[in-house]
């Protein structure tokens, strides 16, 4: 029997190193002669630089150089616009070091390069800047008003993009609706906040003539290409490695100023240079996400069937748009969720403000979309006297309706087309897990009769995952029998080394331990884009599967030739290729790799290479001296994962404290490669979603100062705040890719703010409150329940 590795809860290949302190994160790298960088960052949200005096800083002990915009040579260009969009009519990106103006607190203004970080920080304090303060705009509703201060005077507007998407005939739908409900819904500013901050080490390797860069990036190939272009080097003269990376959640995919400045310093000074962001810098120097303000309305018939949705929203872009308008585009396209919305008008303006720029954070516009859609459906259910589950049932896209076209163009430029799913099945499975009927009919009423404010919420979601453009992989069987796998994707904890090895082990029927996966290093793989948008398992996993299958064919072909049998007579099992029914007639994979190479192996050991009569070139045309294949996979469009979440909460109305009593998830990411890893992804996403529902908000004041730029005041939930999560899998394979898989990275983060809002609203039903803003907090819950006192 073939051994099954794919789909099994295999222990991770990554872990022994990480558990014993032998991980290698960027800040762990100390090179001889290494210099350290600290940045002077803008203390003001909007100002012109009149003058900078770095002379005192240059004279400080241990200081090697102090650079402002004037000293950064090829880095004097504006940072790249990574993802343009036709509707992004007013893009704007920064300079690596501010040239003459700063647009948010934290913007890099000058850099000190010194013998230690301590000395570099000392010197930063000795730099003096003469500022001319400019008017600040933080509130995006104000930013779109006439006469508001302009973030970028030269643009003449704070509106970076205006997008309109229309499906069907929304006006008609609203005119014939039995009911129309409107809500203003707000999801506040937050950030990914990985526990490892960003870090870069760069060195010009004189021996090899290569610029070597270790970077906490989610996209090393993108950085490599950017650096090669910027410094006029051949791509092979730049090696970018994302080694172990301590979490990313989106904010580590970018080309940040530091990512070009540190390599430039290494090139210029010909010494290794390190910069490790500290936590205070991270709060104001690494991208944020989340703030959107939606004015949404839903039109339904008398039975609660959706006729149409109209949504107009403002999206806070922050001070620059280096990542285009990906986040609000995703919100717009995913807002209909798993429901049939025949008529849909969505419109947004992406608005500049004097705050840290916005780019995707786990969920990337989807939590916003789910919050709007699920809140609207709860409103419909409550107003029509329907159970909240029932209104969802009535509006689901049915399993036979796939592929299903939403009618809008998705983030990847392809149609928003759902490939497969079983939404009714997923909800029923959830309700069954929750024992929903008993919960609603018996348990909650009993608790309420005791005077407790308990409530239940459910929310459903979909997630476009596994988008293009493509990823690739090389799979090679080594003469030692080990299998080498290389991809361009780095990981930040998603277990690529494990799941990709599972795929290869399954295809070649070799032990999981025999497969070694190399990732995140441009010396190993040259093409690809990176780890983001829940795409690694789908896109990279598929490329790995295709390459492994090709190697399998090569092995079968070679074995057939050597054994003089037909390929059809061979089986692949137990790490060997052999004749069906005659296991002794065959080769191990290592032996096949040796046979493929007409060289003699000094230490081959287990294979006697037969002398062969001369028949021509040792390596005939079309043959390669290895079992090796490189394949690329480019999805036709996204594959759509889905899920449903249920939660029971209790509110202490006297203190506004929120207690999670139970939490259930049903998740469908198609074929599961490793259930442990999938569960881990969902747990982590849910925890971040709970953060977004009750804890995590970045508070800016009207002057653009971030008021809670520390872990004391930005409230990442601890183990005490996160409840036990009951996860159940439903598997609806994707028809789009060779493995049937769908992405799972962002799943948990998507429905959680919506489901918490729903449950809290249910708990506080007797107060007639509607939850329209997340995150909630104790103060808000107390106000809702004590209108007379507050």
């Amino acid at each position: 029997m073939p051994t099954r590795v794919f789909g099994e809860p295999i222990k991770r290949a990554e872990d022994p190193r990480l558990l014993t302190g032998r991980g290698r994160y960027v800040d762990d790298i100390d090179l001889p002669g290494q210099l350290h960088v600290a940045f002077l960052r803008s203390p003001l949200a909007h100002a012109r630089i009149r003058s900078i005096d770095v002379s005192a800083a240059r004279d400080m002990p241990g200081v090697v150089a102090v650079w402002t915009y004037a000293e950064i040579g090829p880095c004097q260009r504006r940072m790249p616009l990574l993802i343009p969009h036709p509707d992004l009519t007013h893009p704007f990106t920064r300079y690596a070091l501010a040239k003459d103006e700063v647009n948010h607190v934290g913007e890099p203004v000058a850099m000190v390069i010194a013998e230690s970080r301590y000395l570099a920080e000392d010197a930063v304090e000795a730099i003096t800047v003469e500022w001319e303060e400019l008017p600040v705009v933080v509130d995006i509703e104000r930013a779109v008003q006439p006469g508001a201060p302009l973030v970028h005077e030269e643009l003449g507007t704070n509106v970076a993009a205006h997008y309109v998407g229309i499906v069907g005939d929304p006006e008609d739908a609203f005119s014939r609706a039995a009911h129309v409900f409107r809500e203003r819904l707000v999801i506040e500013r937050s950030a990914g906040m990985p526990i490892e901050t960003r870090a870069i080490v760069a060195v010009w390797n004189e021996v090899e003539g290569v610029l070597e860069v270790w970077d906490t990036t989610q996209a090393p190939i993108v950085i490599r290409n950017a650096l090669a272009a910027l410094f006029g080097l051949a791509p092979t003269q730049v090696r970018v490695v994302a080694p172990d990376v301590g979490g990313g959640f989106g904010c580590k995919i970018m080309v940040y100023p530091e990512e070009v400045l540190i390599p430039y310093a290494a090139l210029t000074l010909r010494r290794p240079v390190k910069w490790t962001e500290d936590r205070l810098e991270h709060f104001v120097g690494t991208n944020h996400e989340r703030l959107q303000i939606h004015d949404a309305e839903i039109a339904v018939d008398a039975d609660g069937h959706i006729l149409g949705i109209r949504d107009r929203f403002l999206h806070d872009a922050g001070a620059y748009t280096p990542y285009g308008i990906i986040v609000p585009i995703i919100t717009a396209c995913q807002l209909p969720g798993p429901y049939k919305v025949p008529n849909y008008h969505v419109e947004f303006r992406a608005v500049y403000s004097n705050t840290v720029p916005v780019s995707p954070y786990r969920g990337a516009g989807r939590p916003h979309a789910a919050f709007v859609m699920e809140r609207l459906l709860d409103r419909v259910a409550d107003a029509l006297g329907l159970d909240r589950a029932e209104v969802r049932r009535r509006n689901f896209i049915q399993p036979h309706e796939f592929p299903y076209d939403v009618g809008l163009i998705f983030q990847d430029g392809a149609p928003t087309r759902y490939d497969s799913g079983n939404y009714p099945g997923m909800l029923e499975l959830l309700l069954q897990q929750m024992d929903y009927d008993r919960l609603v009919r018996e348990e909650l009423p009993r608790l309420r009769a005791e005077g407790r404010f308990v409530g239940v919420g459910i929310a459903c979601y979909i997630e476009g995952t596994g988008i293009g453009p493509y990823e690739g992989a090389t799979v090679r069987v080594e003469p030692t029998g080990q299998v080498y796998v290389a991809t361009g994707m780095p990981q930040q904890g998603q277990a690529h080394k494990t799941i990709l090895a599972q795929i290869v082990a399954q295809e070649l029927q070799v032990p999981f331990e025999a497969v070694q996966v190399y990732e995140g290093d441009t010396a190993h793989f040259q093409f690809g884009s990176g780890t983001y948008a829940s795409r690694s398992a789908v896109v990279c996993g598929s490329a790995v599967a295709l390459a492994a299958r090709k190697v399998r064919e090569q092995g079968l072909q070679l074995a057939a030739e050597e054994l003089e049998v037909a390929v059809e007579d061979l089986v692949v099992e137990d790490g060997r290729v052999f004749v069906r029914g005659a296991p002794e007639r065959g080769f191990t994979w290592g032996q096949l790799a040796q046979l493929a190479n007409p060289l003699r192996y000094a230490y081959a050991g287990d294979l006697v290479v037969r002398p062969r009569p001369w028949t021509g070139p040792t390596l005939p045309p079309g043959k390669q001296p290895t079992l090796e294949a490189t394949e690329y996979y480019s999805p036709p469009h996204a594959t759509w994962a889905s899920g449903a979440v249920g939660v029971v909460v209790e509110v202490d109305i006297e203190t506004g404290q929120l207690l999670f009593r139970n939490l259930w998830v049903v998740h469908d990411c198609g074929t599961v490669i490793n259930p442990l890893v999938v569960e881990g992804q969902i747990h982590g996403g849910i925890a971040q979603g709970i953060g977004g529902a009750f804890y995590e908000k970045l508070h800016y004041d009207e002057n653009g100062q971030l008021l809670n730029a520390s872990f004391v005041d930005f409230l990442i939930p601890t183990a005490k705040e996160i409840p036990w999560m009951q996860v159940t899998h439903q598997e609806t394979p994707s028809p789009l890719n060779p493995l049937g898989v769908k992405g799972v990275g962002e799943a948990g983060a998507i429905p959680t703010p919506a489901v918490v809002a729903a449950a809290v609203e249910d708990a506080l039903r007797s107060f007639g409150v509607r939850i329209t803003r997340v995150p909630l907090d104790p103060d808000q819950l107390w106000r809702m329940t004590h209108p007379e006192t507050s």
Partner: protein
Amino acid sequence: MTAVGTERRTIRVVVNGVAYERDVEVRLLLSDFLRHELGLTGTHVGCEHGVCGACTVLFDGEPVRSCLLIAVQADGHVIETVEGLAVDETELHPLQRAFWEKHGLQCGYCTPGMLMVLKAFLTEHPDPTEEEVREAISGNLCRCTGYQKIVEAALYAAQLMRQSRE
């Protein structure tokens, strides 16, 4: 009077059973000393203001934030870090085994801090409840796992450690 105190100081410290003597700047944080002077980079730094817990090490057997001590305070003391946790090259500590088996880590960045605080905790609480484990790790932030599998791993490690004592 002449200035009291010095800006540098020679310290002797035992880390994972190895005695070190180093001359250091007095402002050097213990976390930086362990990582960049001794090369023990298993101890991670996440916030440098004592909230995230990634830099937790054992100081005379008790869990402390190494970012909230200056290295000179370790003079004459005994430090344990994640590098000292495994019994030897081949035999992992029960906590490490449990974290591996239960998928108690993803990016691995908070993991050393979690392991060290749990090592101290499980020594005092060999048979903890789930709530007690959550309390014990509540000073260590994890952004990947949602904590559930860490809690499972801690409970499992406690079980392994009890069994090995029997």
